[in-house]
């Protein structure tokens, strides 16, 4: 049986790792130096064999994506973009990583840029994350001064500059194509897919877009090799995962757990279980665009496939635990209000659909519990319609909490 808090690979111990000196003591940039000695194909292969999957929520194999960018980069111009637009409610792992260990992210970016021969990388970060921005900027400045960034790094022919681009308040910009639009200084509208960023990304050039946590995995993989990386986790979901436990537990926070750890072991282990006098009633996995799980479902191991089989999702790693005082009615209203607010307005079903969903639920909330239970399936049907024809993942999201609430915990409706 897998146990939580096994070997940590991402969350390194050390109180002041944001200082370059301390980071170097903790081993920062050794993996990158090792990568500098390898040829590009070796790096790509190592990432590919590690089986690392994107930690932003979609779980797409990182190696495949990296290879695709490398292949598309026929004109010697590609970009690496770090998606640090951590806007999913209940998610704060990237913030912790950036605030406490920014050099780990920079090292991951260095390795990724080396792999796709990019000389310019961007960190697109939520505008709300003031401290992360500060810490990262300091780290970049220090790294540049110490020649871990800039022209001809460590005497090699490899050059990389990293720029921080600050978002300004848009959940949708966490979607990779929308993020690129925003990075180009435009309104955050999703682009039509295909082409994917690996083919035509930033300014039409091949672009590797990776989540903070994904990039933070690369130094370990480079340092210890794919086989070592695969020694943790499951066959299809190797490695560890940062989870963000919040809500009605004793010890909310970010924890690194091995993939495949049962949910309840996480909630009761590092999460500390429910507080005195309370009990866990249901869990929302993956944030607002996530799924509700009942207490009876918490035996499921935390990995992409097992959760998907159950109709649940890992998303970005948010585990929001709700106890006796939780109001499912209010939670759903908050979620629907969130999507209405964050819909960019480009496509019809999402723009108007999220509005009507919200209005219907508000209407329903003035009614009694029985009516609300009847209303939920109608909303699910409407949300399904939206999900079927909408342009981007945002419109596909409302159906997830609505449907899972209906299937798994409708009896808890207040």
């Amino acid at each position, binding site marked *: 049986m897998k146990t939580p808090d096994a070997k940590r690979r991402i969350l390194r111990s050390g109180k002041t790792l944001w200082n370059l000196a301390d980071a170097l003591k903790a081993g920062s940039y050794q993996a990158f130096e090792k990568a500098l000695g390898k040829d590009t194909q070796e790096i790509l292969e190592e990432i590919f064999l590690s089986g690392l999957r994107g930690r932003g929520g979609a779980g797409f194999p990182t190696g495949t994506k990296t290879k695709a960018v490398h292949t598309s980069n026929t004109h010697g111009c590609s970009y690496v973009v770090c998606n640090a637009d951590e806007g999913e409610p209940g*998610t*704060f792992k990237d*913030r912790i990583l950036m605030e406490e260990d920014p050099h780990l992210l920079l090292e991951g970016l260095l390795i990724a840029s080396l792999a796709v021969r990019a000389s310019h990388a961007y960190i697109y970060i939520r505008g709300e994350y003031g401290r992360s921005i500060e810490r990262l900027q300091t780290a970049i400045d220090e790294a540049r001064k110490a020649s871990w960034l800039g022209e001809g790094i460590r005497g090699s022919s490899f050059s990389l500059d990293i720029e921080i681009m600050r978002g*300004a308040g848009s959940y949708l910009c966490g979607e990779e194509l929308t993020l690129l639009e925003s990075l180009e*200084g435009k309104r955050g509208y999703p682009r039509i897919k295909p082409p994917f960023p690996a083919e035509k990304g930033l300014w039409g050039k091949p672009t590797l877009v990776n989540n903070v946590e994904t990039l933070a995995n690369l130094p370990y993989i480079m340092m210890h090799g794919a086989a070592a990386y695969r020694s943790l986790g499951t066959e299809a979901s190797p490695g560890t995962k940062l989870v963000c436990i*919040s809500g009605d537990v004793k010890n909310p926070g970010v924890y690194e757990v091995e993939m495949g750890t049962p949910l309840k072991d996480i909630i009761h282990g590092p999460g500390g279980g429910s507080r005195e006098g309370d009990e866990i009633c249901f869990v929302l996995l993956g944030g607002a665009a996530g799924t509700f799980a009942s207490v009876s479902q918490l035996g499921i191991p935390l990995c992409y496939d097992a959760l998907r089989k159950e109709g649940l999702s890992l998303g970005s790693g948010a585990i929001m635990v709700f106890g006796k005082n939780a109001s499912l009615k209010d*939670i759903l209203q*908050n979620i629907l209000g969130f999507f209405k607010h964050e819909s960019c307005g480009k496509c019809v079903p999402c723009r108007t659909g999220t509005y009507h969903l919200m209005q219907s639920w508000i209407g329903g909330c003035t009614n009694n519990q029985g009516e609300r239970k009847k209303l939920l399936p109608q909303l699910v049907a409407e949300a399904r319609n939206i999900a079927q024809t909408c342009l981007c993942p945002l419109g596909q999201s409302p159906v997830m909490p609505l449907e899972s609430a209906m299937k798994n915990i409708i009896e808890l409706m207040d």
Partner: protein
Amino acid sequence: MENTDEIIRKYPPAREYLLSMLHELQDADPGKYLTEASLTRVAEYLQLNKAVIKGVADYYSMLSQRPRKKLLLQVCGSLMCHHAGSAELYTRLRSRYGHHPLISLAHCECLGQCQQAPAVQLDQEAFSGADIVELIRSIDKKTASDENS
């Protein structure tokens, strides 16, 4: 206006710096907002038309085209904070600062402080849990001295 130009010219005249410019202009403005005058200067500098700049400024919820007061106090209204009573917190803050001459009170998006919900933000800095009580105390102290000065 001179200050506006100084800020704008720190960036290359390329569209990707638009959001950065708007952030900085807003922070530097005494009213903590984007004036039409500064948007016009940005448009000229980037050789873009006014609507393009306005469109971007409109889209992002952190950017404001209406003046605000000296201190911007925002309460996270996101799911976990909501569950942890941010609505009540907001009500309490409103009764305290609703008509305060130096404080604008508003809601904001998730601040990534869900482990210590509810969270608030004063200008660019996030506070949560027990820190909020401390924050309120320091705001009161600061605004009292500002009002007197």
